[in-house]
């Protein structure tokens, strides 16, 4: 196992995790209709990325087809992230509009983590002359960047009202 296979494994986990967390956010914010629908659309991208990584990984002797048994410790789930962010706050329960912002922030960081893995993979694949992996990374990474831009745009648009409102 070299760095490329380790990165493939980490990225596979990251994309699976983002797909799931996008769906969790979609469910949690059903009344935020744009977030609900777009998050489901974007989860499909991550799901597809994970499948393609699993397929590509077979050539590297990895079997990534099965979802991990438990969430990775290094990747706190939406619920855990929200708990962490409100820890110590009186009442500790965020109003829905702030909770949405915090969840979007969490999704943004997860997607950013994935994009950096893709970046590493692009570089590693070039150095190792792994053309198939380079192609995979080049075709998936732009969509990861679009996920990042989406969370960023939503935060930018929603924050002025949510942070100003009386709660």
């Amino acid at each position, binding site marked *: 196992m070299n760095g490329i296979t380790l990165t493939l494994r980490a990225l596979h986990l990251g994309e699976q995790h983002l797909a799931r967390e996008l769906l969790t956010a979609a469910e949690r914010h059903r009344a935020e209709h744009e977030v609900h629908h777009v998050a489901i659309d974007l989860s499909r991208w991550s799901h597809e990325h994970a499948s393609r990584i699993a397929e590509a990984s077979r050539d590297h002797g990895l079997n990534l087809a099965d979802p991990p048994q438990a969430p990775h410790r290094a990747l706190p789930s939406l619920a855990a992230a929200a708990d962490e962010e409100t820890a110590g706050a009186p009442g500790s329960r965020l109003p829905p509009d702030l909770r949405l912002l915090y969840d979007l922030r969490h999704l943004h960081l997860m997607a950013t983590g994935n994009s950096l893995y893709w970046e590493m993979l692009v570089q590693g694949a070039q150095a190792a002359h792994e053309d198939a992996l380079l192609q995979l990374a080049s075709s998936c990474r732009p969509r990861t960047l679009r996920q990042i831009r989406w969370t960023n*745009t939503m935060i930018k648009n929603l924050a002025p009202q949510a942070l100003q409102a009386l709660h």
Partner: protein
Amino acid sequence: MDASVDRIANPWGGRTPYPRGAPWPYRVDTYLSEQNDPADVERWVQTASILHSDGDAMDVAVRDGRMVGVRGRAQDRVNRGRLGPKDLFAWQANGSGDRLARPMIRHDGQLVESDWTTAMERIVSRTKGLLEQQGAGSIGFYTSGQLFLEEYYTLTVLARAGIGTNHLDGNTRLCTATAAEALKESFGCDGQPGSYDDIDHADTIALFGHNIAETQPVQWMRILDRLEGHTSPRLVCVDPRPTPVARHSTVHLAPRIGTNVALLNALLHEVIRTGRVDHDYLAAHTVGFEGLQERVKDCTPAWAAGICDVPAARIIEAAEIIGVADRLLSTVLQGIYQSHQATAAAVQVNNLHLIRGMIGRPGAGVLQMNGQPSAQNTRECGANGDLPGFRNWANDQHVTDLAGVWNVSADAIPHYAPPTHAMQMFRYAEQGSIRMLWISGTNPAVSLPELARIRSILAQDRLFLVVQDLFLTETAQLADVVLPAATWGEKTGTLTNADRTVHLSEKAVEPPGEAKPDLDIFLDYARGMDFRDKDGEPLIGWHDAEGAFEAWKRCSAGRPCDYTGLSYDILRGESGIQWPCNAQAPNGTERLYTQGISWAHPDTCESYGKDLVTGASDGVVDYQSLNPDGKAMIKPAEYLPPHEEPSENYPFQLTTGRTIYHFHTRTKTARAPQLNAAAPEVWVEASATDAAALGLGEGDLVEVRTHRGSLRGHLRVTDIRQGLLFVPFHYGYWDTDTPAGPGGQTPGRAANETTVTDWDPVSKQPLFKTAAAALTLVQRGAGPPAPAPTTTASAPLGHVGATEGGPTARVRQSSNPPNSTRGETT
């Protein structure tokens, strides 16, 4: 030669065939109410229609201080004297006995009559209280596509610079937000590239989700006249319903709802595959072709056929017609705009034109249409979620420039994020961060999706709701303050149609009771609030419509929608004039982009663009690298499956739309006897196959149910595509036992009881054409057919008596040389 035609039975009237390239012959339509003779008319007063986006120019007949009829203006470039059924008959609603005549305020839970001082004082004091306690973000304004330019502009100044709120939008969000967004994505700027005159020159007309026969009937008359003349154009129609357009088309594609992007990608694939790309045009005027080529390379007709459920051979045929066209005109409306992936699909139509070099020449144009009469003004004036004059909220130079026009500091104008769109404003109201909502000239309690939710938002105690309208609409009944407004014919102002033609509409008669022009109401409020500029002078320095127009001209100077060459005097008596109209183009501008793309440069563009799937905003750096020289942008989009698909419990797709006889929430058209009689009740359309499978027949009372709610109507069996139901919007409740909504003996009858709360992430336009629904029998019909017109897309398959208007619907059509109307117009 004169003829008298029943214009309910024959909505498009008689033909005046003409060949390609010739001017459209005039035909003057005149309708006077029975008791009146043309000789009795005291004055003819110049105006234009406010019942659709055509902007048909007309004169109102006045006698004894009352409107008694209308006549088309022969010299006008838009309609050459013709009028549609709504133009001909709907003016009668102005004189209805139930017009609001005095302000009303809520007292002990009831709306009671009041006076202007009390009503305005209540609004001003609530505004001041909220500004102090919660800031400008607690106040929102939701306006219309049916006011005049002067009113939108005044509202924009008071909302953006006076209150300082980011929450101002128009109900144009429901009809034209995607048109504006698609133009921005492709050309960097809003503004219709083409002209209605392109219909005279086209050899091929492709109508994408646009039942022009019913939504812009006068331009359909123009197409019918071309079809009957020499060198008639070929039509391509994309619509799931058997519309009049479909019946006249060479190729009719009836795709599954929600698959427009797949279909358009296949058309693009075929045009590229067959080598019908204008590479010289691409090189000179566009960026991004390679990306499109890559995106559609696998989008074969066979692939699209599987998604859209249309034969691949028909897609190939349509692509062939579009591919060989010498002068291609495409038009786009709600079948694209109110459907899944709205902006992505509308942009692909622009792409078809860009790759074929079909832009900026007579007959080679795109009409990204509008639904409402003055939607263009809402957009220009920034009352729709943009800044005035197509300024870019993300460009600090543009904001500084606007601040200079208004003499305020730049930070007085909110521009930290895009202006809030209507659906988000309702969400903020639902959550309680918007505490005051002022609704002018629109009826969201019938026109927005998922009505049970909208009613619950509007009915909240904590929301202070102001409604300004002509009648006690479903929305007004939920208000805390109701303001009686004057309308078309009772006030003066200008309105601009979908092809940038500006018309003057003059006051003909007095409004009822104490009703006031919307402009005067906004000016009263501005005075009450005492808004000031940075020198301490009144922020709004004008007092009447002409003053507002002159102020707007200063704001539009140097921008794409430049009005500086226009004035009330120039517009008075003459035909409509297309902007930009300025010193360089004193007679107006027929087509944009005749010399290449003009407004897409990074320093001048209205928007830096968005991701066509996610709606994520691009920044200036992205834009500069994509389009440093300001060319047209070819933006590809991938197809995504619709968000709501049929299931076991909801096996049908449901779409909604209008018919030629009604407009918006029928507040006017239901009060015009001829129009109301032609389509008096909601109905439900299904295909013969689906009806037979469920054992249903013409006229049965059925229920349409979705996750959100249900409605009841009588079934019309038509040639609509299998698996699809159609319900006309906007049948509301004001004339029922429960006038604010369903309940008691009144079941749901508004289509939007059932529609989904979902919107295009790019344009934020709600999706009214993508629900999954169930259809069940309530009661076997007792014999009469559904109350649906036979003259339109709802034409029945079986034998049903034809829709007629009778003697009171007869309209005089004259092809004699028109009288000069100039001397007669006051």
